[in-house]
């Protein structure tokens, strides 16, 4: 007699996840034995996820993604012997990626800021009270935001992305880059002003 379908479904998924764990362990063991074909499988299986995550989190400076992804895999190879299998290999890799991206933010934002826009302190020229969801089509807005971020000085782009898209508090940011919260807020104000100028310019160009 067949078990009820729900039970069958559960045991099927249990078997599948067990098989996946065994496959991962086997893959890890093969890479540690320096099996080059296993290394190719390792890259092929996980690089898309690592790349997508990296690209997203480094949107203002997407050109850095390739180097970060390579660093992630090299670091993973160095640490693979310590991989316990308590999480999936992909989750473990994403954990490494997260650390590498934090390093990028810290390194890039620790560089002293060049004051090439001294007049823009805290000025926010754009004021539009129309609800945002009525103003914009998400796809076009995303592209427009990406273009504006890409045109900003690196420091500003990363600051804005970290603060608003990644929801980091100014206190966290200040601690990570070794400065004061006040300094982060001042830089953010300048970054917002520059971003909005670019945003408006894009709007004018479209019209």
């Amino acid at each position, binding site marked *: 007699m067949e078990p009820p379908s729900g039970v069958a479904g559960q045991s099927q998924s249990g078997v599948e996840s067990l098989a996946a764990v065994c496959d991962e362990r086997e893959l890890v063991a093969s890479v540690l034995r320096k099996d080059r074909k296993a*290394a190719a499988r390792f890259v092929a299986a996980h690089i*898309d996820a690592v790349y997508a995550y990296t690209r997203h989190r480094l949107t203002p400076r997407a050109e850095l993604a390739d180097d970060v992804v*390579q660093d992630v895999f090299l670091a993973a190879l160095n640490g693979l012997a310590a991989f316990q299998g308590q999480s999936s290999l992909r989750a473990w890799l994403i954990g490494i990626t997260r650390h590498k991206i934090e390093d990028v933010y810290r390194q890039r934002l620790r560089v002293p800021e060049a004051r090439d826009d001294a007049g823009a302190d805290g000025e926010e020229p754009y004021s*539009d009270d129309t609800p945002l*969801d009525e103003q914009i089509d998400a796809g076009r807005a995303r592209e427009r935001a990406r273009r504006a971020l890409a045109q900003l000085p690196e420091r500003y782009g990363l600051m804005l992305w970290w603060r*608003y898209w990644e929801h980091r508090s100014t206190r966290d940011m200040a601690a990570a880059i070794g400065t004061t919260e006040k300094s982060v807020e001042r830089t953010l104000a300048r970054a917002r002003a520059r971003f909005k100028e670019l945003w408006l310019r894009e709007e004018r160009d479209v019209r």
Partner: protein
Amino acid sequence: MSGDRWFEGLAQATGGVAPTRAPARLKSKVYSALIAQMGESGSLLDLTETKKAGGRLCVFENSLTILPVGTDIGAMNPCRICHARVLGERMEHAPIFWPGCPYSEFHKR
């Protein structure tokens, strides 16, 4: 609307990103870097062993396993001097079609 609120709204409205696949040339570069790093700390798994473990060898790797030369040659990395690696690392959709070649696999779409 305050600057913070405007940006929070913008981030919320534009937060989603389309899934992105890694470029094939990046896959190739990362693979080459991994193999180079593996080689720095000792020989790679011998090609005969690799084949026994189920790895599919390319035509050049296969030829190394049957050459009547020293035993160390099976641990060499022939990809270092292979045109497929060079193309794979530099081009997207590189015209490489060797069965068993990882670079060729990375460029299959």
